[in-house]
């Protein structure tokens, strides 16, 4: 009996361990045309990043059918490094399967439950469209009130007024503008892909993000108000903060 159990366990283990995802099948000529068209219109093409840049192994020159974040990292080091430290990427960094929306504790779209969180999930790899990645990609999974209220919010409307762009402008207040903010790393502006970094303490987002556009008091009184956060900052803040009152008293003394 015991032998049978052990035997059964070995079989089950073998089945699970050998279940690693295989390489994608060859693609059709029509699909290749489609991909080439997307790529031709991308910043990658104009930056002379060709098929082989991602699809040929740098050393062995073997074909890589499904490049991973390691391929992206060879040019986008800060983006990948920071991605791997946030909730979106930490599972990959720690050698686990990529994050899936069904593992999340926040409300996610049911239909998106089995998606896998890699670079490709948000950045369509061949068009590398950061316009889509900045809002639409987020909303393909996130289903909480704050996210759902974005489109109607002042921020969402401002972005909508800009029309379709090649990439978000310095005026675009997208999901990414706040949650994957542009920050200086060694004097060069990169997108910080650690989506967890500025969530807590909340004042971190105030200094790094809100204060690109808003004053300190307005930002503090907005971001510490849970209802206003849920409403995606639908109206001007009304919350009073004792901290700010105390600062004013202190200033009066000076």
């Amino acid at each position: 009996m015991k032998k049978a159990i052990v035997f059964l366990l070995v079989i089950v283990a073998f089945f699970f361990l050998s279940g690693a995802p295989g390489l994608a099948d060859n693609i059709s000529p029509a699909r290749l045309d489609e991909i080439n068209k997307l790529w031709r219109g991308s910043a990658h093409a104009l930056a002379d990043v060709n098929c082989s840049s991602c699809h040929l192994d740098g050393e062995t020159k073997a074909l890589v059918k499904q490049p991973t974040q390691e391929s992206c990292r060879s040019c986008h080091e800060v983006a990948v490094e920071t991605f791997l430290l946030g909730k979106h990427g930490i599972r990959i960094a720690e050698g686990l399967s990529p994050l899936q929306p069904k593992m999340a504790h926040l409300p996610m779209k049911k239909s998106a439950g089995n998606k896998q969180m890699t670079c490709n999930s948000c950045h369509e790899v061949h068009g590398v469209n950061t316009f889509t990645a900045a809002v639409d990609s987020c909303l393909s999974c996130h289903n909480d009130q704050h996210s759902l209220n974005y489109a109607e919010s002042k921020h969402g409307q401002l972005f909508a007024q800009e029309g379709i762009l090649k990439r978000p402008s310095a005026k675009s207040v997208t999901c990414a503008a706040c949650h994957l903010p542009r920050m200086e790393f060694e004097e060069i502006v990169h997108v910080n892909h650690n989506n967890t970094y500025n969530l807590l303490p909340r004042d971190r987002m105030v200094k790094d993000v809100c204060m690109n556009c808003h004053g300190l008091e307005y930002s503090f009184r907005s971001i510490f108000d849970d209802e206003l956060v849920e409403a995606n900052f639908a109206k001007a803040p009304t919350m009073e903060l004792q901290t700010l009152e105390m600062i004013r008293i202190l200033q009066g003394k000076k």
Partner: protein
Amino acid sequence: MASNLARRLENIFQLKTAVIATIVLLLVWFAGAFALDKRTVFLPGETSVGHVLVEASCNSCHENFKPVTNDTCRRCHEAEMAADTHGEKKFRDPRWAELLTKLDILRCTACHEEHVHMFGRGVHLKPDLCMNCHQGIIEGEMQSHNGFAPDGCWTAGCHNFHDHRSISTGFLMDNIELPPMLPQQILPERVVNLKLEQPPDPDLAREFLGG
């Protein structure tokens, strides 16, 4: 007499069987958990909000059975600790060094134990933990803070233990007068370097078609 002895032997034999069976069962269970990569069965308690996503990767934090060190935490949390107000530099100063005897805060796990109940932000100590050193602040040392709740320092959103760059008194004083909308509303500009005017021809094709 003889039957008594036999019964006793029988009891011992049954006990032995039960013990062996239990050990075998546990071993099979553990081996199965390892083999099936279901390591979550080894978790001693609930994992904190951030770490729950990697709780199946024991060796992310645990090297064999050694205790978790600060280096383990720094692997991921360097950015959060870049400007630590309660860091090593502070406590090299003899004025503050002695305070470490009250709470060994240079050890991450002094406040951030894992697999136990958390009071928010991965802190397992009760929220009045600041009172270990700063009790005087609410008991007369600082008029403006006299009578404040002992557990409100950080839970009310006024102070950060590690990084207070964005909430320090100086920062608030310097910026409190700014209007709701700044004169210029602009995010840091990203530079995209393009090398070509026209896209080149794709340099692979047949490879993807199975040719």
